[in-house]
């Protein structure tokens, strides 16, 4: 007669598989909220679904149409230009603010709050506020500029795609620089004060310490987080543009996210899903390159 296993033995046996069982809820959620929509999205991108009637399989036609559509390619360019303008500036100013606000001075908390505040206000509201500030002939800034120098009266900052894009980049940087700053501040405050003191004892100046000690330490944490999040945020930009220019004038400042929305709302739901997948790839490429760079940089360090 076989003896029943003792309780501790049963627990040990179950324990060897317990870690797998504990992952089940997370895997279920991941499957339901990511894998399932992604799979459905991939399927839809291969159809001509117009959002209402029955979908028909069209293979890769949507992707072919995307690369043949001048407006779509223009929107890719606008999105990339926006990201190239926004991401570096966000990191540069975010780091600069963090370095300044890492030091003790009177009113430091107030300045930190002022810099961070735009990041927690709705981007749509910020967009409208900036429109009232910048609007040609009516905006506060336009009126101040023309009173200082009448030559500005011909300035139509938001009426041309180039000028409008520059404005959009600057507004975006102004709004989100607080977020970037907070991440850098956290990184700076995680650096041990002994390390900084040791540098001072060794005779290193501020910039030498910054270059050879602070930045390499930040590189593996704060810089990595900020670069990745800013790349993702800038390439999928929607709200700032929608509030300030609605992608206009014409389609001059339309980003890929806005294009996707408009195509989806039109009768091109399948096509818009294909464009969303293209955007996913466009975001993924620089993110993977950056991750590779940071990995090699860490390895060298």
């Amino acid at each position, binding site marked *: 007669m076989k003896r029943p296993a003792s309780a501790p033995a049963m627990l040990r046996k179950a324990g060897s598989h317990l870690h797998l069982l504990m992952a089940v809820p997370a895997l279920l959620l991941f499957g339901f909220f990511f894998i399932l929509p992604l799979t459905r999205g991939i399927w839809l991108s291969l159809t001509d679904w117009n959002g209402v*009637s029955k979908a028909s399989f069209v293979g890769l036609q949507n992707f072919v149409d995307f690369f043949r559509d001048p407006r779509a390619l223009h929107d890719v360019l606008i999105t990339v230009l926006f990201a190239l303008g926004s991401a570096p500036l966000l990191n540069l100013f975010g780091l600069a603010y963090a370095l300044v606000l890492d030091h003790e001075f009177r009113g430091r908390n107030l300045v930190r709050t002022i810099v961070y505040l735009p990041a927690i206000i709705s981007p749509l509201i910020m967009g409208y506020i900036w429109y009232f500030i910048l609007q040609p002939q009516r905006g506060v800034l336009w009126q101040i500029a023309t009173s200082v120098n009448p030559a500005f009266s011909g300035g139509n900052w938001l009426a041309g795609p180039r000028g409008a894009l520059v404005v959009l980049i600057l507004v975006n940087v102004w709004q989100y620089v607080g977020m970037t700053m907070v991440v850098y501040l956290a990184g700076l405050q995680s650096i041990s004060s002994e390390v900084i003191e040791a540098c001072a004892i060794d005779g290193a100046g501020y910039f030498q310490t910054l270059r050879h000690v602070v930045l390499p330490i930040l590189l593996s944490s704060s810089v990595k987080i900020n670069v990745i999040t800013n790349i993702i945020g800038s390439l999928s930009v929607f709200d700032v543009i929608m509030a300030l220019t609605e992608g206009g004038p014409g389609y001059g400042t339309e980003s890929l996210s806005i294009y996707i929305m408009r195509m989806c709302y039109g009768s*091109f739901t399948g096509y818009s899903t294909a464009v969303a997948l293209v955007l996913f790839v466009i975001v993924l490429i620089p993110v993977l390159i950056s991750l590779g760079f940071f990995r090699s940089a860490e390895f060298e360090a």
Partner: protein
Amino acid sequence: MLKRIATFTMAVLLIVGLSLAVGAEKRAAVKLFTGKVETVEWMDDLIKRFNKENPGIVVEQEYQKDASNVIKVKLASGDVPDITTVWDQGFADMGKYLDLSNEARWWSRIQPAIRDMCTDLRSGKQYRIATNMTMAGLFYNKAIFAELGLKEATTWEEFKANLKTIKQKRPGVAPLFMGGKESWMLGHLIEFMAHGVIKQQYGAMGSRQAFLANDDSKLRFDAVGGPMDIFASRILELKNEGLLNSDFLTATYDNQLEAFATGKAAMISQGMWALSGVLDKNPDMKEIGFSPYPPIVNGAKPVVLAAEDSAYLIMAESKHKDEAKKFLDYLFRPENLKSYSEFLKAPSSFTDVQADWGPIKDSVAQALKNGINIGFTTEGPSGFSGDDAGRMVQELYMGKYRTSIEFAKAYKAAWDKAWKAANK
């Protein structure tokens, strides 16, 4: 002890939850989905009174700025409203709307012309009930016109001469002010001026059928000397001769109304829906004139929009059709429609409603006599909205198209693409 408290709490929660669920089931929730920003507040007030009068029904209003697009997402996700203000030809073709043709108690009170406008061409049925009529044309400042000795234009040359006179003699006043940041406003120029040529040429039924079937022999969107080619050249004329406001691309709807109400704009292109906004900004403004759009094609007649407005539809998939009809019965009571018309500043389409809807009633009546009455392009493809058309006008103004015919060809390509997608 703790166990008892927990058990008791659970029991209470269960009873409360069940009673709420039962209560909710007893009260039919009727969802009204609207895109009409002007009526949201008024409708909220009406709903409050209706809900009080009908304890078994709860009407809830949802407003979306981009309602005609949002409703597609709603239908795709199964979140079907019971009543909507959104008309879409594609939805009608797919049987998404409830047939209201046999609701004699409503139709017997509505002007026959409005019933015709509410008739779906493909099925011959009526799915929508329009409570009002709306008009769109050129609002003008009568005081400025009188001072400069100007008359309402009946040809394009007269129209331009008026604008030039205003430009010369009133340098601080924009001859024609457009809030061009709002693409819908520029889309209306195409609807009324460019499509107006087709609507005038083939009549209401003929043009609606041409738009519906994308009949190229009648639409001639990309033809040299066709409506789009001429429209584009007219817009470029106005731009190049400085007859539009200098902030054409960045001015908003609100800026436009402000400029007109304060005498900084002599003319604006708008519909009756803008009248209350103008009067809000300047309640003392009495000198408001209203005229048809001048014909863009030589030899044609001026056109004025006289269309059904504020249409209500019941969705075929609604689980509360009877309750939805009950709510519409309440909305269509003469006293409610009178208040609605006076609030909207638009005449009622119901014959038993006498509303004092606006200070420019006579001017509008005259404009309707002077111009060919046209409707909205409701048979256009849903994937190419008035906003899309308006954005193309923005591009035209910016100089994206080297010639007017290039614009016309781009317009046709965009129209055709959307039409094919909607008519698979």
